[in-house]
């Protein structure tokens, strides 16, 4: 199978593109994929339905990873003072070792286990006779060697099958140590259909075992938690820089550059702001139910989006002084952003891009591309659910399939002593009337143009076809997709780990991103595909000097 993007871009009808994408599949696969490819009509709140969060078809080369990757890699990966032990054969732990570009600042306590990789390295005898003994011993050794605040255990595929009771092992060790919180995640890779299940398992356990452990009042007037920000390329650092300037105290980031104590005291914040809706919206819900902290959706990708998000936070606290300070910060930050934007705009305007990534970035990054005058012609998520595409209003209509039923939903009620609604019902009502939207997310589709293609769980074959047919100027996805796209002569930007560089969040991040995309779409390298003799192969005669 060889593909060339030599054809000139013809005006494709989206329905034809869809038909073309499906044409080679066996009928059963084609039927299934047809439901995951939606031609966007962008009608306010009337987006047609898309199928998402369903199994990937065996044999189809997917972009997705597993539940373990979502749990250990994404959520727990950037927590620096936990010793994260992977219980399983060596590979699962090895591949999740430093490969996600989460930046970390070891802080004043200096605890940082992120450059380390811990595994029980199960052997065949452990598979046959059970691995609990080895796990117990490994936890003991980790404790003796490092004396961390917390040790967490991750189950990989074989562990679930052989029936190791990791939770009991963890509980026993926690009791034994007394000064180290040990708990476990049943995040075997076969559970659920994608990383998304792993996010949920990770967050549930953090909520169950860590949140609420430290009731100490933290100093600060405007206290929030930033949920669903993973500090890839230092995004979280840039956001915290802006928070600090505005006078916002970030109690806990879930989970970029996070610490045990941040999770333990997050219930002392007064507002939750949700960045990645997919990986964490349920934590926001639980924090509201149990502790009375309301949540709003924000987005710090894009300078306008950043300004808007800061204003939302200020509006929530409603303090004039604070609102003014936020405005002053925006006024101070924006000129540099504007100058950078004006510089690159002539070179990026009108260019086209496709985004297939994650559970929120395919939406968030559209903001930045818009600022650069670029058009998104197709986008989709790797592991999102319908609400991430169509908005939270579809939530009551979501059907629970067998795979989703496997993932625990924590039952949470108001905490007897700690529940404290931050705003009275009247205040909430007044704010809502004034336009503040709590627990609200519209999803990606309404923000996309009519006739664009929204595609869930895009695979390698479809990606290649899309590029061949629609010839975008830029394609964004992950590392596995990077080089097959670039072989076609189309630049590809990783939006999971950013390849290199970052931050892209906040104001400084926007400037970085403008320059990065300018570099990519205007790099001279894309003009070197053909050698001069391939472009002009005619010869006049042999050995003639011209």
């Amino acid at each position, binding site marked *: 199978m060889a593909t060339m*993007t030599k054809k000139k871009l013809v005006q494709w009808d989206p329905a034809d593109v869809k038909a073309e994408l499906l044409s080679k599949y066996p009928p059963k696969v084609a039927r299934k994929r047809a439901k995951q490819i939606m031609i966007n009509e962008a009608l306010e709140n009337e987006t047609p339905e898309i199928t998402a969060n369903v199994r990937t078809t*065996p044999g189809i*080369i997917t972009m997705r*990873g597993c539940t373990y990757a979502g749990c250990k890699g994404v959520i727990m990966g950037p927590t620096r003072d936990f010793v994260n032990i992977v219980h399983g054969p060596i590979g*699962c732990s090895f591949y999740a070792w430093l490969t996600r570009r989460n930046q970390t600042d070891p802080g004043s306590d200096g605890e940082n286990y992120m*450059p380390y990789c811990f595994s029980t390295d199960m052997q065949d005898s452990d598979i046959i006779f059970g691995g609990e003994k080895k796990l117990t011993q490994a936890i003991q050794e980790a404790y003796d060697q490092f004396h961390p605040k917390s040790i967490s255990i991750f189950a990989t595929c074989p562990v679930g*099958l052989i029936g190791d009771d990791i939770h009991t092992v963890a509980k026993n060790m926690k009791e034994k140590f007394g000064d180290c919180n040990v708990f476990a995640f049943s995040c075997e890779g076969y559970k659920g259909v994608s990383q998304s299940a792993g996010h949920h398992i990770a967050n549930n356990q953090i909520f169950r075992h860590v949140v609420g452990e430290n009731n100490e009042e933290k100093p600060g007037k405007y206290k929030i938690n930033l949920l669903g920000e993973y500090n890839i390329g230092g995004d979280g650092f840039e956001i915290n820089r802006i928070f600090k300037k505005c006078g916002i105290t970030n109690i806990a980031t879930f989970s970029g550059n996070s610490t045990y104590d941040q999770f333990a005291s997050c219930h002392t914040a007064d507002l939750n702001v949700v960045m990645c809706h997919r990986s964490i919206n349920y934590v926001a819900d639980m924090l509201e139910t149990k502790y009375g902290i309301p949540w709003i959706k924000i987005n710090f990708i894009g300078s306008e989006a950043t300004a808007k998000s800061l204003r939302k936070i200020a509006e929530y606290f409603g303090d004039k002084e604070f609102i003014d300070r936020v405005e002053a910060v925006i006024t101070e930050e924006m000129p540099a952003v504007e100058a950078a934007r004006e510089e690159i705009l002539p070179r990026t305007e009108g260019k086209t891009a496709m985004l297939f990534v994650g559970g929120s970035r395919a939406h968030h990054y559209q903001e930045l591309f818009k600022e650069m005058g670029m058009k998104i012609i197709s986008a989709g998520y790797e592991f999102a659910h319908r609400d991430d595409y169509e908005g939270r209003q579809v939530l009551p209509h979501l059907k629970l399939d067998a*795979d989703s039923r496997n993932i625990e939903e924590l039952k949470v009620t108001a905490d007897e002593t700690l529940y404290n609604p931050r705003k009275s019902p009247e205040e909430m009502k007044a704010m809502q009337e004034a336009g503040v939207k709590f627990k609200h997310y519209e999803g990606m589709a309404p923000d996309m143009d009519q006739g664009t293609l929204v595609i869930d769980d895009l695979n390698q074959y479809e990606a290649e076809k899309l590029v061949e047919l629609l010839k975008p100027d830029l394609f964004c996805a992950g590392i*596995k997709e990077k*080089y097959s796209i670039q072989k076609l002569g189309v630049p590809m930007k990783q939006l999971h780990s950013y390849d290199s560089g970052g931050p892209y969040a906040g104001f400084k991040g926007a400037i970085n991103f403008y320059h990065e995309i300018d570099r990519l779409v205007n790099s001279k390298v894309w003009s070197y595909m053909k050698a001069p003799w391939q472009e002009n192969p005619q010869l006049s005669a042999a050995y003639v000097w011209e």
Partner: protein
Amino acid sequence: MLLRHTPKEITERKALVINPAKTCQPIGAMYAALGIHGCLPHSHGAQGCCAYHRSALTRHYKEPISASTSSFTEGASVFGGHSNLLQAINNIFTVYEPEVIAIHTTCLSETIGDDLKQIRTKAQKEGKIPAGKYVFGASTPSYVGSHVTGFSNMVKAMTEFAESTGKKNGKVNIIPGWVEPADMEEIKRMAKLTGVKSILFPDTSGVLNTPLTGEYKMFPDGGTTVAELKSTGDSVGTLALGEWCSADAAIELDKKNKVPCKVLDMPFGLKATDRFVDALRKIAGVTVSDELALERGQLVDMISDMHEYFYHKKVALVGDPDQLIAMTEFLVSIDICPVHIITGTPGKKFEKRIREITRDMPFEVNVKAKGDMFLLHQWIKNDPVDLLMGNTYCKYIARDEDVPLVRWGFPILDRQGHQYFPTVGYKGGLRLLEKILAALLDRKDRDDPEIKFELIL
């Protein structure tokens, strides 16, 4: 400090591996399978393993790595992955149209006990394997051995193709082991220079070092063809490079097709390359070409020219057994002293071989199979070295301990060149020396006080 929690004091660990010096079988199987022309590696398990292996190989090669997965969910994990695999085979041949599917198992499918051969027979019966196309596979449970074992198992499985027609083909099979595409290319060149007709398998050159032309070939031009694999049964003999990576396949060919074999070390450095060339020469009954003799002489020349900078330098090494054995021998042969040597891959023989090679060295040697990089780091803290050689993960140790690092092995995630410039053979030896010297002398130029700073080294 990056590895700030690593203490100098060493305490014994029985259960906890910290900073592994190995990874799991399937990634080796996947790499090996990519060395067959028109082959799609398939991971029989949940989809995470495949995603991880593809990502790791992609980061190392900066090339597209196509591989599919059976995408197990809970049901498949309970009832077995038969139907997932049958469905996958059908989808793969319909959508991607490879010549061959090379299936490897994962911890999950192994623990369940899926039988690949049985599933293949079923696929055949159901007509899911088109005429002229092939499905084969290897069992690669990661709770046994390491990525090296997986590579070896997949290469061994390739011998299934070998046919004995009764008529010899006049060729020598060369099994290169887990080396870079550039190394495979170089091994072929050396065989050709010696006048030996060879079949190299697997062969990732032309697969994982492809050009950028605006065209994407899911199945690039390189790789050992199925026809060649079939023909390996008619070869006059097999040279297996590396006991861990290649011996099993060679022995299997011997057993199955009566193709005699010789197991050699991987041709890294002077002496191992000498043995390789000598073996080639004897099998073919030819005189070694002047060209190769010249290359050898150049390598010897560089060793002599720069010997003062090698002499009694202490080195720490981490990597895979076959590579480490050859490298240790090379370093010892130029009077560099490897003092700490670690592989994560199990095998008692490894420690024995290293002890033999380093027997007459003036320094004591720490060596461990089934070791990890945490221990290596502790050894370095206790007995500092002048140079560290290993994969990219070593850079955390190198920075903390301020030791120069030569990147060599798998994975290399932060530098380029390994897929283009060989380190095997005499030419490769020159490149290794160039790298080692650059690391040592850059350090000397950085550290020498001004009055001792010199123009000519």
